[in-house]
């Protein structure tokens, strides 16, 4: 019994880590007032870059960093559209979700002899009894994000830009710079989330490695009231749902449920939680509205 509880916790944490990374990405972007529907695409490119660099260098840490960087680069495209060109943030995010997987599979075919899956990495990120190092790292990130957002002047600026950019501007805050940095950071974190999938949960990239995690992370941001710690708790819940899929799907589990029904669980849970909680949480006031200086 104890071992199965420990196993459940371990699997929950393993699946939560990528979600929390991506969720933090959503938190920082939306706190600065930019809706980031493109997290899914940024995770996908991060997952691919992590797996590819991890394979060629045999160094999972380099892979992890490459994943973050790849996510960040894709986020810059989103930033240019949303911040400089006042684009529709949802449509731009959808474009990112086409570009991310498109680029990932295109590069995969180029680098892996025409295949859409990468070869398994020789070394995964280090783990201790099946608990990967991504878990303490992401928990540290939650702490840092919470500290930066609520205890430093930088965080105050980010939140000011998301709540009332015009007022922030009159106080001498460079609104565009803050937004750009936040969206870039959002992409880096989402990329880390993708790489945490391909370098810890599994060991290679396939076209279905990232299948909705980015959107689940977005739902977690809403459920977590746009706060880092709240988002973390929401991600843990979704991670638990995914762990249940694994545990109950095992051949020696107590109840036999068809695997395809079990696989719906995280998505159904997301909907139920949104219905139960969404009305009670409010987004940053200027979230999703492009800022035009002097208007």
């Amino acid at each position, binding site marked *: 019994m104890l071992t199965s509880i420990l196993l459940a916790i371990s699997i929950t944490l393993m699946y939560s880590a990528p979600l929390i990374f991506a969720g933090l990405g959503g938190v920082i972007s939306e706190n600065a007032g930019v809706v980031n529907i493109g997290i899914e695409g940024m995770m996908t490119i991060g997952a691919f870059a992590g797996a590819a660099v991890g394979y060629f260098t045999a160094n999972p840490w380099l892979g992890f960093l490459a994943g973050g960087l790849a996510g960040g680069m894709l986020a810059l495209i989103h930033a240019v*559209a949303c911040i400089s060109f006042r*684009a529709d943030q949802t449509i731009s995010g*959808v*474009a990112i979700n*086409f*570009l991310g997987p498109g680029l990932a599979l*295109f590069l995969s075919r180029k680098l892996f002899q025409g295949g859409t899956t990468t070869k398994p990495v020789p070394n995964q990120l280090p783990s201790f009894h099946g608990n990967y190092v991504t878990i303490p790292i992401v928990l540290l990130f939650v702490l840092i994000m919470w500290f930066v957002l609520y205890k430093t002047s930088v965080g105050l600026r980010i939140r000011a830009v998301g709540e009332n950019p015009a007022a922030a501007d009159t106080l001498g805050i460079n609104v565009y710079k803050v937004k750009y940095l936040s969206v870039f950071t959002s992409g880096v974190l989402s990329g880390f989330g993708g790489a945490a999938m391909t370098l810890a949960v599994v060991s290679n990239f396939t076209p279905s490695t990232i299948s909705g995690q980015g959107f689940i992370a977005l*739902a977690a941001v809403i459920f977590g009231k746009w706060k880092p710690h709240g988002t973390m708790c929401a991600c843990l819940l979704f991670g638990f749902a995914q762990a249940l899929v694994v545990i109950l799907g095992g051949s020696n589990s107590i109840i036999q449920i068809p695997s395809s029904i079990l696989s719906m669980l995280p998505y159904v849970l997301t909907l139920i939680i*949104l219905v139960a909680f969404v009305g009670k949480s409010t987004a940053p006031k200027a979230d999703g509205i492009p800022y035009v200086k002097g208007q």
Partner: protein
Amino acid sequence: MRYKIAELLNKSVIKIVLAIVLGFLVGAIALILAGYDPIASYSMMITSIFSSPQNMVQVLILTMPNILTGLSVAFAFKTGLFNIGGEGQYLVGCMAAVIVGGELKMPPVINIIVIMLVAILAGGLYGALAGLLKAKFGIHEVITTIMLNWIALYFNNYLISVPGIGVKNTQYSIAIKQNAWTNILSNWKTSSSGKAYLASHHTLATILLGTDINYGLIIAIAAAIFIWFLLYKTTFGYQVRAVGLNKEAAEFAGIGVNKNIIMTMFVAGGLAGLAGALQMAGSAPHALSTLATEPGYGFNGITVALMANSAPIGCIFTAFLLSGLQFGGSTMQMNLGTPSEVVNIMIGVIVFFVAVASMFTMLSEKIKKRRVKNAD
């Protein structure tokens, strides 16, 4: 002259054409960077479509679901909703069509009508669910529809394991009964007289026997005309557009915004569901199959609608363009080894530049300002 350029940049058709050109341009850059020949790849992509009647028919077959999912996204756009749920609504339509068309014995003509209506209803209700969640609980439709897409996908896989619907030890469900298929001359082409005739008419034989040529496209085009009529010639369409333009003003004018959101999503879902029914009735194996990833028609619809600027009739042409690109992309990969995913990159770039269409407006304003300065 300069003023003319500025005016042109502000036209929505020009903006979309520019977005498509930029899509091809960025795709070419990606190809060059990856060491492929962009000119050879693009010319293969385009010529392969027109290289044989069979290929042209294949593109038309692909166009059918893309028109309908494009209409689905475009219709929802008109009321300010972003329907990313086309995938799920399409799948629900497929499931409804296969269950009704595979289980029930019905006379011809009536059967396909019943199948289409049931699929429209099923897809519509699935879409309306997202509308309800938006109207009642204020949950963003982008998140709900994505979740509903995955739920539909796994439900599809579950159905295949259900006895009576799935065929044992295969990846497929039971098929729609043959008398409901929408394939052109489906009975005649396999009859002895048909076989004898086709043996001496090679081109016709490659089209009729080598492809799943079907009536679906005609129904899809009719649907586009119907949606145009619904949007611009009826009170309901007027209300849909009013809510899209200004929610508060529409509410003030006595239009029930929430009811409108749900109704719009019902129509949007119904269109995607119809795509599912026509796909099942028109293309082999006329059955559901186990899916690992989303079939992609719902996402295609987003591109189709954005390129068409949400104009229903425009969707017919942009769906054809997109289907051509995708078909050409796969033959390009087969013949030259160029990754077909370059098409996805191009689509991403096109959607991106449609999103930043304001860039062209800003450019146009700048050019105009400079003109004023020069005049001074």
